[in-house]
């Protein structure tokens, strides 16, 4: 019996130690030699390509299934498979595959941004640069703009293509804000004092809640100070302390006196819709319009921002280093960021999504169509949104801020 056990132990250990030897495949050589988009199109004909991205938004899913997939088949004879997967798990999969020494994987195109791009680039999980090989980038986007060169403060170097934009937007029922919406953290505090128990936010590290906390900090301390602070926990604490103090001041006037918080934005939305709290928020600029259309928010719900601005960012598309069909992946990204596909995405049916385009490069009709989007009920104008924007804080500072919030606000 003992011999067996030792044998098994050894087998298990051996298997976990040995990596897989794979030779450079023909595919790899192909990928290296792609220099133009048209070349990619020729090489990709007849292939199947996968798209991995967040699966909880049924409208975005429908857009991929009903608009992008047929277009890809028709135009390029490429089959698209959409796989719902959170970005954490996409990265985990890629990391694990890399650790195991696999040269090829299942993921081709992925929907990515922010802190996750930082991780992916750090671990060399992405194939690139690709922006020079994707036509839409040159055609429609602001090639030198902030969003095309930096992602959450990390240099992009052409490894991802802008896909959509997001901005933190607050939602409130105008009936509950007879004196106007709060345009700054100070006004928010006053409102909270006048209406105790009617405000709350989702606890970090929940994604949007974390953005809310960062936004409050930037509103009080100023974005530049936060950006220039070093990434050391204690130094950062000194810089953002006024923001954390504010949140502590706000605490007693929150729902449940700040002793507990909702944990998902879905829950916050539900509490808002039920009238339990008077304010909600979302990273999607069209959130209020969407919810009003679905009869989940009252028709008197409107969006509002802080005068000093709210956090805005972009999401991107990237290609995995281990992709087996890189040419097809390039074509897919091109199609997903094409004018035709993106205009469809901007429709109500597919979520009122805002394309990542530079208005200077678009035709008059397209520009008109897009600005009409903003004429939707409950949404702010494009100018106002763009005016009141602040960039994202650098990716490596975000977990630090979340921990500091936990230590100094949650457990105070």
């Amino acid at each position, binding site marked *: *019996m003992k011999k*067996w*056990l030792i044998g*098994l*132990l050894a*087998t*298990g*250990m051996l*298997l*976990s130690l040995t990596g897989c030897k794979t030779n450079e495949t023909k595919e790899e050589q192909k990928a290296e030699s792609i220099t133009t988009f048209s070349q990619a199109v020729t090489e990709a004909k007849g292939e199947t390509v996968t798209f991995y991205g967040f699966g909880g938004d049924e409208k975005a899913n429908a857009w991929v299934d009903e608009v992008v997939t047929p277009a890809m088949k028709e135009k390029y004879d490429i089959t698209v498979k959409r796989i719902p997967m959170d970005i*954490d798990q996409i990265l*985990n999969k890629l*990391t694990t595959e*890399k*650790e195991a020494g696999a040269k090829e994987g299942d993921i081709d195109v992925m929907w990515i941004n*922010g*802190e*996750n791009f*930082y*991780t992916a680039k*750090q*671990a060399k999980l992405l194939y690139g640069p690709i922006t020079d090989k994707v036509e839409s980038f040159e055609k429609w986007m602001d090639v030198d703009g902030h969003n095309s060169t930096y992602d959450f403060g990390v240099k992009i170097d052409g490894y991802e293509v802008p896909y959509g934009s997001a901005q933190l937007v607050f939602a409130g029922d105008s009936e509950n804000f007879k004196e106007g919406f709060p345009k700054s953290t100070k006004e928010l505090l006053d409102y909270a004092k006048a209406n105790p*128990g009617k405000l709350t936010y989702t*606890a970090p*590290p929940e994604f949007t809640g974390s953005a809310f906390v960062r936004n409050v900090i930037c509103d009080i301390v100023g974005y530049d100070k936060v950006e220039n602070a070093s990434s050391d926990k204690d130094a950062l604490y000194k810089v953002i302390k006024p923001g954390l103090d504010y949140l502590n001041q706000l605490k007693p006037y929150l729902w*449940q006196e700040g*002793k*507990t*918080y*909702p*944990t*998902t934005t879905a*829950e916050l939305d*539900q*509490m808002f819709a*039920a*009238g*339990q709290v008077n304010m909600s928020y979302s990273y999607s600029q069209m959130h209020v319009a969407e919810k009003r259309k679905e009869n989940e928010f009252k028709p008197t719900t409107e969006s509002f921002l802080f005068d000093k601005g709210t956090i805005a960012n972009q999401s991107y598309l990237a290609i995995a280093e281990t992709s087996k069909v890189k040419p097809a992946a390039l074509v897919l990204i091109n199609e997903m960021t094409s004018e035709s596909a993106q205009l469809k995405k901007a429709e109500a049916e597919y979520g009122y999504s805002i394309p990542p385009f530079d208005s200077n490069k678009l035709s008059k009709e397209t520009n008109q169509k897009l600005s009409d989007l903003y004429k939707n009920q409950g949404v702010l104008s494009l100018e106002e949104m763009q005016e009141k924007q602040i960039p994202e804080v650098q*990716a*490596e500072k*975000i*977990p630090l801020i979340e921990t500091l919030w*936990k230590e100094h606000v*949650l*457990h105070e």
Partner: protein
Amino acid sequence: MNRKTLFALPFILLNSVIIFAALFKGLQISLGYYPIVGLKDFSLNNYQQVLVEPFFQKSLLYSCYLALTATFLSLIGGVALAFLLMKVPSCWLHKIINLPISLPHIIVALMIMQLISQSGIVSRIFFQVGWINGMDQFPLLIHDSRGFGILAVFLYKEIPFVAVTTLAILQQLQLGYIEVAKHLGASTIKIFFSIILPMIQKTLFTLFIILFCFTFASFEVPYLLGNPRNQTIAITTYELFTQADLTTRPLAFALNLVISGICLTVSFLSLAISRFLPGGRKIW
């Protein structure tokens, strides 16, 4: 090694390979060897850091509290339900009792949230009946510090599970013993403690181990329904795992191994206790 041992071989093989591979990798990374991010030294730093962190002890205790409460209540409720099931042979009721077992925990969590949150169904009933005037008057049953909602989810799933498992065992027991005892004049309580309990005691301890470990390491339910102030240990691990900065992975693995260690210790303790109780040494 005779032919008979071959019977057990596939079982041992499958489990061993998977567990050893996992253990090995976990040890490897948690001790500091993580080439993909460039860490190549072996040290006990990660473990030290993890055990010293102030939140660790808090979340450890909270996880224990949740696991123990949920498991004890489930066992008591489940055994009671098993007896009910034995007495009432209705096919349909048995089928209904079986249903919660098939539901994934996350669905149950959502269901419970829709039921007992302040804007939930029960609150609406109270409102319609006039017991409360607004949803804020309904007691806070989720996101509360006692974990009421979390416990509700586990009880909902585990009481039927315990009941069904215990029932299967009860059905195969020779209940003739009970008839004999009754004839000899034993009181109900004595029958329960001297005859029934020893017979099912082993199963109960086994269930205790399974349920405790599962609840202890559970992530999604506390995440959805818990109070951010009271984190469970699994949430802490998850947060370490999903940090953008991959250098926190070793910490997460260290925490994983600590959790495994705790579960194993609890299991051994329970088995030891069970051994000393009546019925613990018999093989049926």
